[in-house]
């Protein structure tokens, strides 16, 4: 289960565990040795994660054991209760929505949910939503506006699903419509990329007043694999594509695509989910505390200006 570059960390953890049980069974005092090893572990982990290549970060962002959206909904907000259905054609398990509470304020939450095991992954379509999912999102944006409920979205998807039904049901249309709908929200909206921010399918629920990204999450116009297949004509060049795409949290901060990087526990969110979730909770609360005094008109204007500014070019005029 450990990622390739986590192997030494994993081995060191195993050695510490072994030494602990040995010391216990044999009733010998190895605390000095254990402390030394733990310090080595901490340094190794810090160094490893401080120097991850972009491709390695892609792997962390997708790591099994990394907290999923429902893990955050269970503990980074209160009283989460799921609402189902797009009122049109179905209920998409890849895009979860509902009501919750942040402090004393009701909120609408929308989140892309990957599976935590194979069975759930199949049920959740690996977090790849169909048009139905985005229609559900838009329906709940209406609820948010009607009842003045701020919006939290958690982004974690390889992308919107590329399939026959999805195309027939207007995948492009609903993504565009969801971007537009979210830009018109009269309430504060906060988006957090918690894992994989996969292109238009991610952006469709990412048109927020504040966009955060977890330290080891990514956000990209295309997956490194697809990019490599097209531009290198070789999917094995995914690491090169990841490098070229500049898709890590700090890359995106530099590009102005995200407003803030949320630090993860050392070794990544999967090493200490509870800590990661708590940081997200604090971030959400802080963002809403700041945004709740903004008027609806200001919120719309700020959100529009935020996205209107996106891009880099030379202006000769």
């Amino acid at each position, binding site marked *: 289960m450990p990622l390739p570059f986590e192997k030494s960390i994993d081995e060191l953890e195993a050695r510490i565990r072994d030494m602990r049980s040995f010391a216990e069974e044999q009733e010998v005092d190895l605390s000095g040795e254990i402390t030394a090893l733990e310090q080595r572990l901490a340094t190794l982990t810090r160094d490893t994660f401080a120097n991850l290549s972009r491709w390695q970060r892609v792997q962390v962002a997708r790591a099994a054991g990394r907290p999923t959206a429902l893990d955050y909904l269970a503990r980074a907000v209160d009283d989460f209760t799921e609402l189902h259905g797009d009122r049109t054609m179905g209920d998409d398990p890849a895009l979860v929505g509902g009501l919750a509470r942040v402090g004393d304020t009701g909120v609408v939450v929308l989140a892309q949910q990957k599976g935590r095991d194979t069975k759930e992954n199949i049920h959740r379509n690996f977090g790849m939503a169909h048009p139905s999912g985005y229609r559900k999102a838009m329906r709940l944006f209406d609820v948010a506006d009607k009842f003045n409920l701020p919006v939290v979205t958690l982004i974690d998807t390889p*992308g*919107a699903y*590329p*399939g*026959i039904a*999805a*195309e*027939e*049901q*207007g*995948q*492009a*249309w609903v*993504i*565009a*419509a969801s*971007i*537009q709908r979210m*830009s*018109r929200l009269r309430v504060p909206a906060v988006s957090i990329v918690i894992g994989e921010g996969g*292109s*238009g*399918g991610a*952006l*469709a629920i990412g*048109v927020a007043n504040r966009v955060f990204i977890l330290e080891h999450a990514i*956000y*990209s*116009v*295309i997956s490194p694999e*697809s*990019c490599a*297949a*097209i*531009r*290198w*004509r070789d999917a094995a060049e995914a690491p*090169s*594509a990841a490098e*070229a*795409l*500049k*898709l890590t949290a700090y*890359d*995106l901060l530099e*590009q102005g*695509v995200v407003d803030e990087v949320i630090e993860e526990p050392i070794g990544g969110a999967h090493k200490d989910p509870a800590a990661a979730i708590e940081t997200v909770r604090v971030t959400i609360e802080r963002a809403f505390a700041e945004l709740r005094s903004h008027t609806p008109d200001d919120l719309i204007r700020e*959100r*529009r200006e935020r*996205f*209107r*500014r*996106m*891009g*880099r*070019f*030379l*202006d*000769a*005029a």
Partner: protein
Amino acid sequence: MALERWFRRKRPTRGDDDASPAGLWLKCSGCHAQIYRKDLVANLYVCPECSHHERMPVDARVEMLADEGSFERWSGSVEPVDALGFVDTEPYRERLTSVQQRAHRPDAIVTGGATLHGIPVALAVMDFSFLGGSMGSVVGEEIARAAERAADEGRALVSVSASGGARMQEGALSLMQMAKTTVALEALSERRLPFISVLSDPTTGGVTASFATLGDLVIAEPGALICFAGPRVIQQTIKQDLPEGFQRSEFLLRKGMLDDVIPRPELKARIAAFTRLLLAGIGTQGVLPAPLPAPAMAPDEATDDPDGAMGSDSDEEAAVRAPAV
């Protein structure tokens, strides 16, 4: 960098091109008939044999839609940069330079003001022959500016899309153009000015999934490939054949996604009729400015190359197979 860079060269006229033996006959990609090039051009790049709609060069498109002498180019002052230092098998910077020299424009779009049967509009026409019509910061910016200027000047917006999707060499910033173009359209909505979006072959990925499907009316040319994910991607995902006509205009009309599919020769008149009706609501009559005087500047007459339009290069084909979103 001065605007003139893009327009100083006296480019070959159609007459010059026609004189070259290679350009004399073309093969229709619909019925494979040999078509005399002049006939195809005169017929708006619609095959006289089978009515197949070939891809149309940007300037022929502008000429077809704008009233004679009415087009005033707005685009061109904004140029792309290689913000990521993107290198695949070739640096993005070099790729850009070579396509810019061939296309005589800074990026994959031309915008401008015009009248269309007397109605003042902003036109935004995408150039598929320029890196597969991919949308990066410049395409996004030009569309946003065209929408905003249209709103300021009381014009309707008419866009003609042709795109492989987002320009992946500009990374997440190209993705953000989907949101940027979308929010820029709000300026038009607030003034109740119509946005007529025309989808031509091919319109895919991030362009389909943003401004291009947000028209008050969304119409397509016959037989155009219009999709979010390209057919190749879907086939790789589902490992089975795609239905006949899948993702083509007529299929999408049946699926409820389009207001209509309109043959190219009728396009201008139908757009004018739609726009007139949308502008004739209660209390809006007389509010809009009268048709503008003819502009001082001549229409942009950049490359009018049907081979380019009908042919392909690796960027374009790749884009259609697997549009970046």
